[in-house]
């Protein structure tokens, strides 16, 4: 019997790969080829030199924008984690009906276009908006400027991206076997120690998954920071768009895209060495 199973496994070893072929072909045509084209354009447009990279890597504007893009993405990811983790825990430890209700509230914001949500924040945080009015009513004479600051853009991006974090963490928390927690308790783990040594490691795949997702999506954002943030908050995706759609500078835009890709992969590689991205798959 045992021999049979071993044989069967060996024979079906190729099967998963064969099943992957359609996807692999699809990805090769619609992802690898265009990406290679972008890579080539970054070296050859308008003429075959390294001048695009020279401009991207020495121009103050581009370096500052890259830095700002990554700082923003990391800040938003951390905020989403701090907001999302407790909420996911609340959902995982509530009765199914309550959990469903919270899940509904969390995903409801997905039903509205993110542009509409961005404009909604503009109204809420504005000089004549309800938040400033409330601050004035409770006695603050000169409420701080909320709109067009890093605060307002970060708040809006966290609002837009938090559901990705929450759903990822929640799906992992829900599957945690409660007997593990009880065993830990019976062995004397209490409070923070229980959380630190048992619960947190068990939810790590959800944290890793949610963080990578939020981080990567945030790297490509540019409308929200430009609409709500301070003038200093340009994101690299915005500059890439300008280069291509305004100046037809495909080479320059491609070079920026390649730098973004390489730096992102480098960050994920460091993250992988430190935390292990394979946790993504539990």
């Amino acid at each position, binding site marked *: 019997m045992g021999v049979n199973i071993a044989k069967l496994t060996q024979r079906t070893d190729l099967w998963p790969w064969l099943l992957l072929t359609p996807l692999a072909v699809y990805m090769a*045509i619609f992802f690898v080829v265009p990406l290679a084209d972008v890579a080539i354009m970054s070296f050859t447009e308008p003429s075959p030199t390294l001048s695009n990279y020279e401009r991207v890597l020495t121009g103050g504007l581009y370096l500052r*924008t890259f830095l700002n893009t990554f700082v923003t993405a990391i800040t938003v990811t951390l905020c989403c984690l701090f907001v999302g983790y407790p909420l996911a825990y609340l959902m995982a430890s509530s009765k199914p009906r309550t959990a469903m209700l919270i899940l509904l509230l969390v995903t409801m914001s997905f039903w509205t276009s993110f542009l509409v949500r961005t404009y909604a924040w503009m*109204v809420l945080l504005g000089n*004549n908006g309800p938040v400033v009015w409330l601050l004035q009513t409770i006695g603050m004479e000169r409420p701080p400027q909320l709109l067009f600051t890093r605060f307002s853009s970060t708040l809006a991006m966290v609002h837009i991206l938090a559901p990705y974090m929450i759903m990822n963490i929640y799906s992992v928390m829900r599957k945690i076997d409660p007997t593990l927690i009880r065993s830990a308790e019976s062995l004397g783990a209490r409070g923070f120690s229980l959380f630190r040594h048992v619960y947190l490691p068990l939810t790590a795949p959800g944290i890793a998954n949610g963080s990578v997702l939020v981080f990567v999506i945030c790297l490509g954002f540019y409308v929200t920071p430009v609409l709500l943030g301070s003038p200093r908050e340009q994101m690299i995706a915005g*500059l890439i768009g300008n280069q291509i759609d305004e100046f037809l500078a495909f080479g320059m835009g491609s070079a920026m895209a390649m730098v973004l890709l390489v730096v992102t992969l480098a960050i994920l590689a460091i993250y992988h060495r430190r935390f292990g991205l394979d946790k993504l798959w539990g």
Partner: protein
Amino acid sequence: MTNIRNRTPGFLVSDRRTFLKGAGAAMAGTLAMPYIARAQDNTLYINTWGGPWEEAARAHLFDPFTAATDIQVRTVSPVSFAKLAQQTRTGVYEFDITTLGGAELVRANQAGIIETLAEPYPGGLFQNGVASHAFATVISWRTDKFPEGPKNWADFWDVERFPGARSLQRYAARVLPIALLADGVEVKDLYPLDVERAFASLDRIKEHIRVWWTAGSQSTQILRDGEVDLIGIWHGRHYEAEAAGAPVAMTWNQGEIDRAYWVVAKGTPNADNAKAFIQFATGGKPLAGFATQADYGPLNPAANEFISEEDARRMPTSPENYKQTFEQDMVNFGGDPAQIAERFEEWVAS
């Protein structure tokens, strides 16, 4: 909506880009085969801004054109200059016609990505684009803050007489001429732009610009909400805030005109139909209807006789308003627009 139609299989074209591009185009071509028949089937594909713009174009340009010629019009949005360029490179056409602003038109004509056109009405042709309609960037202000508003850009820059938060568009080619006017340069001496002087003038106003707007709807929103007291805004967007009940006023004086031009994608199999459409769409009556509904000013003077006096008052191109405004000069700009834009972005962010 985004039917990709094929002209020449990419691998037959001696493209200076490599086989990758060819392979991609060939693949797209194979996928698009069913549409080749449709391409010769008297259908014109037009790139539009969507929304109210397309509604107005549908009512006054597309449907009447179909009624007159039996050529169907399909639309692809939003307007994309980059796509226009890519179409010529790959030989795969998603649209035959699009509109461009002056700066893009000059670039497109240099790059050879648009068809040669004939003059449809006297003065209507520029760099192989047919002038259709115009909007103006005007000074608009909150009347609850200033019953008597600024009269020109120098007043807009005067933070002592008009204290308050301001906004301008985050767009170098439009902002630099305005900064020079504010610094006392005469309209006739504006081009080529004195870029150094323009940035020196911008330095004076920088800390009073609360936000550099990037989207038309954003400019309406911040004016309506009173986020800013003064704004350099497209005239149609000003009227939108006014229609929403905001206490706002504007002046045509020193309004900065932007022209929109129809162009035909180079090498499209539909070039003849496309040219016929442009001839039709810039004719007096259709253009008058479109410009009135979409809050533009028609550039073919023949359209003026179809426009009521009341509507004409809202247009930058009506004789009364036009003489107060000024035009941009993209041929004689005063430097490489891409480099100036880069410097402007750097200046805004620092």
